[in-house]
């Protein structure tokens, strides 16, 4: 049971490691002094906090927190402020999906934590994309027709 819980937390941690890396790429393509760069900084810090929180939760359960990869392949080329914003939004979608797996856990505190993180990721995605989604984090295949 604990092993399964730790595995889910590790997946969320992997998503946070990827986001921490990705926001570095995002920031590098934004204009110095812009509100977008300030937002990227705020979001980056939020992901670092979540990453550290997950690492502590894993350690508390006797697990060894996964470390970040040295580099991450980007899903598409980031060459401008617009593609940087797109990357941020895409990463937030992935983070929301990883936390929905935490929501599926039975432990109430973990479920609440997961839901709060899904919500935070969806809000960040909305601000980068300028539009909303009906089911943040839920893959279309899990929706019923």
């Amino acid at each position, binding site marked *: 049971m604990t092993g399964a819980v730790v595995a*889910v937390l590790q*997946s969320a941690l*992997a*998503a946070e*490691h*990827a*986001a921490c*890396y*990705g926001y570095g790429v995002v920031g590098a393509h934004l204009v110095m002094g812009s509100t977008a760069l300030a937002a990227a900084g705020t979001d980056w810090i939020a992901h*670092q906090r979540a990453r550290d929180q997950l690492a502590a939760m894993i350690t508390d359960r006797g697990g060894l927190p996964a*470390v*970040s*990869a*040295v*580099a*991450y*392949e*980007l*899903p598409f080329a980031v060459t401008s402020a617009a593609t940087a914003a797109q990357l941020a939004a*895409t*990463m937030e*979608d*992935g*983070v*929301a*999906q*990883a936390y*929905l*797996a935490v*929501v*599926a*856990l*039975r432990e*109430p505190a973990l*479920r*609440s934590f*997961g*839901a709060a993180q*899904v*919500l935070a*990721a*969806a*809000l960040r*995605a*909305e*601000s980068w994309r*300028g*539009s*909303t*989604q*009906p*089911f*943040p*984090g*839920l*893959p279309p295949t*899990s*929706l*019923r027709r």
Partner: protein
Amino acid sequence: MSDETPSRRTVLAAAIRGVPLVAVPLALAACRGVQVLGSPPPPPAAIRALSAAIAAEELMLAMYRAAIAQLPAGNTPAALAVRTVQAEHAAHLSQLRSRLIEPAPSPSATPRPVAIPPGSTGSILQDLELAEQAASDRLTGQLTVLPPALAQLFASIAASEATHVPYLQQVPGAAP
């Protein structure tokens, strides 16, 4: 960040030796494991929560219909935004209904009248924003009584509704 130092060194060392770095696909690392949906019939508390969520979405849709009727006619930015969000609520409702295993209560013949006090575009949007936040909070508060797959759906819809608040706030004509 102290834990980043060794990995930087690794990057450098690898670069010097000409070793190709193994890059982990970002999307892959980020996307793992939403539980496979399709579980045993939800317990009664969950059914009550699901029925309440369905009723709340029906009410929300009625509120959006009332808002559209109140807004100035035409494809104004406010009308477009409100219709976009309305479509997301329709999607929420259909997913929630699909999880109800009991026969759904027959929809009342006359739709419940929903009052949106007449007012400016700004005040109409503000009413919707308040309703969205309340709906999001209500779903979040129900999570612990739900089976895993339904908890995921509730959390996702709660997140969607929370994003409607800043989305409506940035519409031209929204109250500051």
